[in-house]
């Protein structure tokens, strides 16, 4: 029957079995490696190196989460458990080997975290992956609570609420690397980040990785092509635990402290935000999300007392209107670029963006003024926004805010509709040409 396929002309791009060229296959990774190598030379301040260390850790963590949510359609509310347990095990191991006793150099310690993540992934996965969907989400929530609460009770191992501290320079040193200077830790994290990202990308391109996608799309059908969906979920869960554990191990090397807050519900929630805001439908999405969310997390709090509220609103609006996250929005522009239509649509984007920003300004005025009136009342009602000073209980600013929000919102919705139409038209035009 194989002759049937020979009679059909293969369309362009049809898989031919020829291996992609080395540039195509390894090029992006080499670029990424070079980028990681030069970043600390471009951003050399202590803060930027520290921030990049956190970002590197979070990239692994967010990607590991996306093995569940984006790749396999599993919504977990307890993923930080593996991050935390990986971190604690690494820290305990480091303390045991402190004083240069163990033969292992610091570079391999994240593997301890990874193994811990894997082992606990197997244990908890055996329970959680018996169910899918909502029940799975609730079980992970329960496991998260169980482990976090237990961590406070088992003070000997978890060090109570202060956690346990380590000294990374006490570990057996090789190549004269003490890992005292933060930049050395940066390169350690960057190395592990690169390896983990490549590994996780590779997994998406294996038979198992594709079956995960199938399970996400239609688990029932997967049963009828020979797969046990529970096993698929279980493997995905365990592997996600492995990488989350590596991230946790890196975190404990980076901060030299690990406490139970790092595995609590807040941390589990934040990884959901990272993956989702970045975009779960695209491999690069969680990477973008980890970078953006970490940056905002560290910087936005200096700007507003209620930054977390903005964060929540951003998340909800993305769930409602941009379910594929930042990466999804970027990917939507790709066909336009390919068809040479982006510049024709771009003005519409700007048109929609301006009233959108106006509405945002109005909303943020309302939020900040409410905040000033309630919680910050002790500091007086005077406040300054965009260099303009006013009183939070005056009528004019409230009126302004409502007008900005209402007017901007109304125009924004209209302009967004125009932009959508322009996008559709451009797609059609591109196809015709």
């Amino acid at each position, binding site marked *: 029957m194989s002759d049937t396929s020979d009679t059909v002309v293969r369309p362009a791009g049809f898989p031919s079995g020829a291996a992609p060229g080395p540039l195509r296959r390894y090029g992006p990774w080499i670029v990424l490696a070079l980028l990681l190598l030069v970043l600390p030379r*471009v*951003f*050399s*301040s*202590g*803060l*930027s190196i*520290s*921030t990049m260390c*956190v970002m590197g850790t979070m990239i692994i963590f967010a990607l590991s989460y996306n093995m569940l949510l984006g790749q396999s359609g599993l919504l977990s509310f307890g993923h930080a458990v593996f991050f935390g347990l990986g971190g604690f095990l690494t820290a305990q191991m480091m303390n045991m080997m402190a004083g240069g006793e163990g033969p292992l150099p610091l570079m391999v310690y994240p593997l301890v975290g990874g193994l811990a993540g894997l082992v606990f992934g197997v244990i908890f996965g055996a329970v959680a992956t018996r169910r899918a969907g909502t029940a799975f989400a609730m079980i992970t929530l329960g496991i998260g609570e169980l482990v976090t*609460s237990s961590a*406070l*009770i088992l*003070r000997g191992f978890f060090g*109570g*609420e*202060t*956690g346990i*501290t380590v*000294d990374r*320079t006490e570990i057996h040193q090789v190549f004269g690397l003490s890992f*005292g*200077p933060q930049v050395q830790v940066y390169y350690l994290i960057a190395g592990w980040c690169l390896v983990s990202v490549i590994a996780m990308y590779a997994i998406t391109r294996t038979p198992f990785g594709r079956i995960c996608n199938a399970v996400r799309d239609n688990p029932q059908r997967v049963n009828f092509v020979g797969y046990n969906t529970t096993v698929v979920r279980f493997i995905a869960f365990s592997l996600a635990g492995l990488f989350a554990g590596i991230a946790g191990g890196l*975190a404990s090397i980076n*901060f*030299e*402290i690990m*406490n139970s*807050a*790092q595995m609590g519900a807040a941390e589990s929630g934040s990884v959901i935000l990272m993956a989702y805001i970045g975009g779960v439908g695209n491999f690069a999405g969680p990477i973008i999300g980890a970078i953006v969310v970490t940056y905002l*997390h*560290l*910087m*936005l*709090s*200096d*700007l*507003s*007392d*209620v*930054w*977390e509220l903005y964060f929540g609103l951003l998340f909800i609006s993305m769930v409602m209107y941009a379910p594929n996250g930042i990466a999804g929005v970027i990917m939507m522009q790709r066909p336009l670029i390919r068809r040479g239509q982006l510049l024709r649509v771009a003005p519409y984007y700007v048109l929609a963006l301006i009233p959108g920003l106006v509405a945002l300004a109005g909303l*943020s005025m309302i939020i*900040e003024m409410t*905040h*000033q009136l309630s*919680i*910050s*009342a*002790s*500091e*007086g009602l005077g*406040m*300054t*926004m*965009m*260099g303009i000073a006013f009183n939070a209980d005056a009528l004019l600013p409230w009126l302004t805010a409502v007008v900005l929000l209402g007017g901007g919102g109304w125009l924004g919705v209209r302009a967004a509709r125009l932009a959508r139409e322009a996008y559709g038209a451009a797609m059609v035009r591109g196809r015709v040409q």
Partner: protein
Amino acid sequence: MRKLFATTAVALTVFGAAAVPASADTVKIAFVDPLSGGAASVGQMGLNHLKFIADTVNAAGGVNGDMLEVTGYDNQVNAQTSLVQVQKAIDEGAKIIFQGNGSSVGIAIEEFVTKYNSRNPGAHILYMNYAAVDPAMTNEKCSYWHFAFDANVTIKMEAMTNFIKDQPEVKKVYLIDQDYSFGHAVADTAVSMLKEKRPDIEIVGNEFHPLVKITDFAPYVAKIKASGADTVITGNWGQDFALLIKAAGQAGLDVKWFTYYAGAAGGPTAIKQAGLDGKVFQVNEGIANLNYGPAMETTKAYTERYKDAPTMFPRVFNAMDMMVKAMEEAKSSDPADFAPKLEGMTFQSFSNGGEMFMRADDHQLFQPIIISAIGPVESGQVDEENTGWGWKSVGEIAAKDTIVPTTCDMKRPG
């Protein structure tokens, strides 16, 4: 949000290579505590105190001619976020870090500062701890670059038990604490110190409950009642305290309460609701109604500036005033120069003028401890949380009667 948009530019250039160097004539003080989210109000109070004191010092000509500049950094009460914020502060030229909320954050900063100074030759970052009270910070984890200005768990228990020692009506004591290291420290020191000072007292219960997880303390109160206790000692704070007191009031539990944090936000309201007039005691370094002249004047000036925020942290004043004195003695604002002056310094307590001293062995401040009870106050006196109830001193323990040993093995630089 006062800073909103104004600091956008600064934040966006954070990734710019060069850190802003500290100008020669300012001393940068970084205040690392919660400044966003629900705990912001607590952190904001500390920041207000620091700014108030810095302005006072600056108005009088500054320190050695240099001006103090206080900047807030939001740590979201998270240990790891705190470390990035401390790094940010250091980049921006701060050498003095103030922090107080949360021992887990405190220990993280203490370790970070110590390691940072040893790994970066020439760096002298100092951690001024105004409220974190884990005894570990001045014992096994003690650091030359850390000074503790609040009385820690053991010191307060020493003061508390010295007070209880002379209360013959205390016969049966029930201990209830949060199930984490602070709660255990409270319970353990209470047991050992009571046994030593009042062997006749019977400990009828030593209970630990989960931290900030209990919504109804009625079952616990039933247990206390069943035990026949006449006194309860608790380290509970926040909602764990408020709910415990509330449940006690509802069940009509009639005992004396010796507490660490009854005065913290929410506490007085709960006590008044439960109607426990004169039954609840707290142990701290100072209260509003001590009628000590200099403190009253400062309090007045402070409340004029921050109208609805009368809560005072005497320890912030102690910390800042002692630091300024050390800088002046050393004629330098580099921690490497003035830290030796801070060691062993004696000073007058902000609250009542009593003598206090910074023990050089572990950098723990010893200061007079006030035992106070809450009840209705006359007009003119300071009440708490608009309840009409305020704290009144029932006993003062001098600094020399609060000394506890330390296991600190201080590693000094050089």
